[in-house]
């Protein structure tokens, strides 16, 4: 009998359907991996199992019995536990208090001694290195915190454990310890759903693997019977389903056309290594990699928003590493921030005020803003970006996500730059606005602007970029592709660690 079985689960957010009749089965005592590109629907599916979201259709069976999970509490009572990717513990409380947090609330009083004893019972079999239940969580290394997180999850009679990218923040040795722990849990008959991008995790730790793509469950395999290539094809294989503007026809990738030259960039916090690439005038250069591969971090490093350990960035004939972000922006290398609400827009101000924020000195005379110029500039941007609004006085918060994003693009481009770095420019944007942003990007290149496009969406990278740098999970560029090589199979092969995994296997077999 299956510990958990999903039949025909579907889910939409508004008009956007993210799950299409997904079937899935988890046996007790197995480690079952779920793979898929960013946005394939993995977290939505898991949130449905955990009661965070309600499915629009489909059935859930626990131990063969049809069940409705309406709330997280229902899930917990059924023995379903979820360990999220980020650690969410009370950093100032003890290990024991964290593990039994949900039970402490009732009655108001608790005895730390009995809690600690109970915590020790749960913790000891999990980890070879004993963790002191009286220790303050903040003082523990990340790997031990993760153990506490898992202990907390399973303290409540756990039968089904969901792990979301559990090794993403761990070192090799720490990941090893985590895997040993998972295997111990498996021996106790707990069914484990293991979400991961790492091929090595899948092939070395898991029993079965299911692949989600665009909300469809594509296939389920026994790990022993499937190849890396097959998984890559399953994750990627699909047609480009949107029309993109035509790519650059005649790019001259010559020494004289280099507008940005990045050499040996090294992150101080180790998120990326040895980044070398050149950007030529008038091209769209893509950066593809899975979530957390370090794409955004590289861009932040280039514009001085992140501490570097080494390397240089040559722009306009000089090394800009160490320069202030403001000065870099002023000199013509600008970046569209990844999070429009937090870093980009003034939500409670109007379109006009947002648009001119980077352009103030140009419309100022004797310290006073020239209102006519301000209106004209905004109007021309509204027309060019096709921002749908009542007028330039409209408050940005009241615009749709797509139009907000267009305002952000307008704001970033108010001063005409030489190079634009766009980090996820179409995230959370409707299809129409997306196409308009794509068209604008391409138009910019015709005007001689060079663009770096960071995107988690494979289609966008394939449709838009003239050349793509592929980054794998360790934060290094493993391959550069251009022309026909820019296709989903190739990209997925390199960014999903499949390449690295096959390489290391090859080395092992050679050594043998």
């Amino acid at each position, binding site marked *: 009998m299956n510990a958990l079985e999903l039949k025909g689960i579907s889910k939409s957010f508004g008009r956007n359907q993210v799950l299409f009749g997904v079937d899935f089965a988890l046996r007790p005592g197995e480690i079952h991996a779920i793979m898929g590109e960013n946005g394939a629907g993995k977290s939505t599916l898991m949130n449905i199992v955990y009661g965070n979201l309600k499915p629009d259709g489909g059935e859930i069976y626990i131990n063969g019995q049809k069940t409705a999970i309406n709330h997280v509490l229902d899930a917990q009572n059924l023995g379903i536990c979820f360990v999220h990717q980020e650690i969410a513990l009370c950093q100032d409380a003890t290990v024991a208090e964290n593990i039994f947090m949900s039970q402490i609330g009732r009655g108001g009083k608790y005895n730390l001694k009995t809690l600690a004893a109970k915590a020790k019972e749960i913790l000891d079999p999990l980890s070879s290195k004993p963790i002191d239940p009286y220790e303050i969580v903040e003082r523990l290394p990340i790997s031990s915190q993760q153990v506490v997180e898992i202990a907390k999850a399973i303290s409540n009679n756990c039968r089904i454990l969901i792990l979301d990218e559990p090794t993403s923040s761990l070192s090799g040795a720490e990941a090893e310890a985590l895997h040993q722990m998972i295997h111990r849990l498996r021996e106790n008959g707990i069914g484990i759903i293991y979400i991961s991008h790492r091929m090595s995790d899948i092939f070395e730790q898991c029993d079965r693997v299911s692949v989600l793509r665009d909300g469809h469950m594509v296939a389920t395999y026994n790990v022993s019977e499937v190849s890396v290539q097959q998984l890559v094809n399953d994750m990627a294989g699909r047609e480009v389903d949107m029309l993109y503007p035509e790519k650059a026809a005649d790019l001259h990738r010559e020494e004289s056309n280099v507008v940005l030259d990045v050499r040996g960039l090294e992150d101080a916090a180790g998120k990326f290594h040895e980044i070398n690439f050149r950007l030529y005038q008038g091209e769209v250069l893509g950066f593809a990699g899975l979530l957390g591969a370090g794409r955004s971090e590289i861009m932040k490093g280039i514009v001085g928003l992140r501490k570097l350990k080494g390397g240089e960035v040559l722009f306009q004939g000089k090394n800009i590493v160490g320069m202030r*972000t*403001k000065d870099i*922006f*002023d000199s013509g290398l600008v970046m569209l*921030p990844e999070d429009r609400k*937090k*870093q*980009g*827009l*003034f*939500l*409670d*101000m*109007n379109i006009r*005020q947002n648009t001119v*924020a*980077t352009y*103030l*000195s140009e419309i*100022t005379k004797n*310290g*006073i*803003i020239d*209102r006519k110029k301000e209106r004209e500039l905004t109007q021309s941007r509204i027309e060019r970006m096709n921002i749908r*609004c*009542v*007028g330039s*006085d*409209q*408050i940005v*918060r*009241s615009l749709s996500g797509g139009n907000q994003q267009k305002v952000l693009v307008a*704001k970033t481009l108010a001063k005409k730059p030489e190079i634009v770095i766009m980090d996820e420019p179409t995230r959370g944007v409707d299809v129409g606005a997306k196409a308009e942003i794509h068209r604008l990007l391409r138009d910019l290149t015709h005007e001689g602007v060079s663009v770096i496009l960071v995107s988690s969406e494979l289609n966008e990278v394939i449709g838009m970029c003239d050349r793509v740098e592929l980054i794998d999970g360790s934060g290094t560029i493993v391959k550069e592709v251009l022309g026909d090589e820019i296709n989903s199979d190739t990209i997925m092969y390199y960014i999903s660690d499949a390449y690295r995994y096959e390489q290391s296997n090859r080395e092992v077999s050679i050594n043998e």
Partner: protein
Amino acid sequence: MNEIAPKPGIKGIVKKLSDVRETSLLMIIILCAVILTFTNEFFFTTANLQTVLGSISINGILTIGMIVVMITGGLDLSVGSVMCMSMAFAAQAILSGVPPLLACLIGIAASALSGLLIGLVVTKLKLSHFIVTLCFMGIYRGVVYVMTAGKSISLVSTLKDMPKLAFLGSGYIGSYIPFTFVIFALLAVAADLYARRSTRMRKLYYTGSNELAAGHSGINTDRVKIGACVACSTLAGVAGIIYMSKYSGVSTSAGTGLEMTALSAAVIGGVSMNGGKGTVAGGLLGLLFIVLIQDAMNLFSVQAFWQDLIRYVIVLLAVILDVVQETARKKKNS
């Protein structure tokens, strides 16, 4: 900061005006004034109106400063103390023979410096305005005590020889309008226009609306915030000089509690505690409203114990109204 899109024609203008906080507040104030005129024979008398205008002036200058800091997302609880410190410096200087104009400048300079100190602590140490200015409220008041050894300074006899300085606080223009009010009105109009039109003030709004985004747009947000603190304290210093002239001296408790008046006025006038929103005009109308209520309570001889209670209930209602409007708007838009 206009909140809505313009629509053509008179209807559009009416609609636009009716959506602005200032208009509704002005209506309420006019209504109050009309009611007071008909219900109390003393309200519409020269003496009473002069009192109202007089009490608006000094508080008003403080309120302008408070609004400026609040636009950047901060607040300044030290304005009352800074005001008192400004006059303490000026008075001491006058008594030791410094020419009156220079003495006043010394007082104002001392306030500007105190604002600079607050700004530096807030930005460089990344502390909240609330805790920093709360401490400086006590520190600057302490400076006054130390300077004066806790005693009031009287300038009654000195000011007799300084007619210009005396006129500043107690003179009348056209024998009806207090000179202090003229100064305040000029400052208010200038500040309101400056806030609407100038690049510098626009940067204040950007910083208060979203500091991170302002930084990403190439605005030096630390400098903007420090500038706002200096402006606020300097205005408090100016208010102090006027106060000194008006009351012919310095009492060590002068200005106590005025920070709350300024803060409440700004909040009633629609200046957001979260920054990025509000106008000088709005905040000052808020002050006018407070002063009117205060005056009404005096005219109807409401017991003093009740006055604070009523005033703060009104402030609370204004804040609640703000939150209700805000959530309604966000709901509508999402």
